[in-house]
């Protein structure tokens, strides 16, 4: 694995008409780390990830993956695995069928589908329609799609959403095992306590960047929690209303 930052974001800004969703955000994700992108709902997390992946065009600034914009990165689809809020499976498909479609697009053998199904624990439900999956099963399915090409970098948008306590514990262990294999993981979340136990570094967004660095520096002692530090950086709901 090279020393090039897995993800590099420089002065990233996105405006939708009069509304600025993301403003002048700069951060890096180093290889082999689990990085939590934190923020309230509407803080600009998903918008930032969509710009990183080339789905959305920045108003200004740049976002690169392994040193290049996603669209210009050779073999990007195999090097970057993605699970995004708002990207649903193909309509009307079973879990296996959906995975087969994306495996074909990646030029992977059908056996790879069975491997990722096994990895996320969905083998027994693979032939059921995804429409009938629970939220947790859908999250696992999305992870399976992201893992198809055995990518170096995983970009996961709110992977813990809708998971029950067992699912969250499974996800935490699973992400750690992926990082131990040398992968880089950038995950967005608003579940602070969950992220605190999972990530190495954090990036805190509230339209603008509020913090970027190791979680150990943000939450140094046993007397402080990530939640307290988060609200110090982004303000509480009451403060937001006063500001408004």
């Amino acid at each position: 694995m090279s020393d090039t930052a897995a993800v590099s974001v420089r002065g990233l800004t996105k405006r939708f008409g009069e509304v600025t969703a993301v403003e002048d955000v700069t951060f890096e994700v180093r290889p082999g780390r689990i990085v939590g992108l934190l923020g309230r709902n509407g803080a600009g997390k998903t918008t930032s990830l969509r710009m990183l992946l080339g789905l959305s065009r920045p108003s200004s600034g740049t976002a690169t993956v392994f040193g290049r914009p996603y669209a210009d990165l050779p073999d990007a689809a195999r090097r970057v695995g993605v699970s995004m809020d708002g990207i649903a499976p193909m309509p009307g498909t079973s879990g296996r069928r959906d995975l087969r479609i994306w495996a074909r697009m990646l030029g992977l053998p059908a056996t790879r589908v069975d491997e990722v199904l096994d990895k996320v624990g969905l083998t027994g439900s693979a032939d059921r329609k995804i429409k009938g999956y629970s939220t947790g099963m859908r999250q696992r399915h999305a992870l399976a799609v992201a893992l198809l090409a055995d990518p170096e970098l995983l970009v996961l948008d709110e992977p813990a959403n809708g998971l029950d306590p067992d699912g969250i514990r499974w996800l935490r262990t699973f992400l750690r095992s992926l990082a131990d294999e040398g992968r880089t993981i950038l995950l967005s979340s608003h579940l602070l306590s969950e992220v605190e136990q999972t990530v190495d570094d954090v990036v805190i967004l509230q339209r603008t960047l509020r913090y970027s660095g190791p979680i150990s520096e943000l939450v140094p002692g046993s007397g402080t929690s990530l939640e307290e530090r988060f609200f110090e950086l982004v303000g509480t709901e009451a403060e937001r209303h006063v500001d408004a």
Partner: protein
Amino acid sequence: MREVLNAEWLKAWSGRTWWIMGALGVFLGLLGSSGAAAVADQQIDSGATDAAAATAELIRSWFSVLLASVLFGALFVSREYNTGAISRSVLLCGSRTRLLAAKTIVGTAMGLVFALLAAVLAPLSLWGFFTLFGMDVQWSGEATLTLLGVLTVVTLAVPWGVLLGWIIRNQAASVTIVLVVTLFVDETLFRVLPAVGKFTMGIAMGAVYRDAKPEMLSIPLALLVIAGWLVLAGWTARRLLVTRDVK
């Protein structure tokens, strides 16, 4: 490109769209051909037509499968926008232009499947309905050319729908617009302003399946007009796809 084509082919046969549109095409074809047979029965009795013309007319009635074709094409793209699966397609396909090309090619292949369905069912319905009404089938060169025309427009209707789907990018809107344009706008424009209306996609397709209306384009010119519409829609679809955010 081969991988993207393989994946798109599997997508085309996934979900309910392909068989619902196939069933709709068969229904519309049978409805049209039964009506054509009933009219032919009366007209042959009154001497207004003959068996050869009635045979070609029943074959022509299968042009209605193109409505199912164009809807399939539009849904083939727009359903991905509705679910957000389009983002994954864009992420995994390598380039947006490649994805557009693959969907258009696979759409055309699916158009051939719909055309094959019509090619089998049109002669079968001819035999069935003519037997039912006690009429003789008289296959002619006109019937052959009409069948070829029907198969051509049924095939080309799918890529037309695909490109409209890329431009409209919404499932409900694409279905509504396809229905309104195909069933209402083209016909109305042709009736009100035939000199302009004959250049619409629907009326140009009518010329290809030898619809016997006055002021229709010749078949070669109609094919050129259809190609022109496809090129224009393809250019617009590509421009929108590569410049807009994928949502």
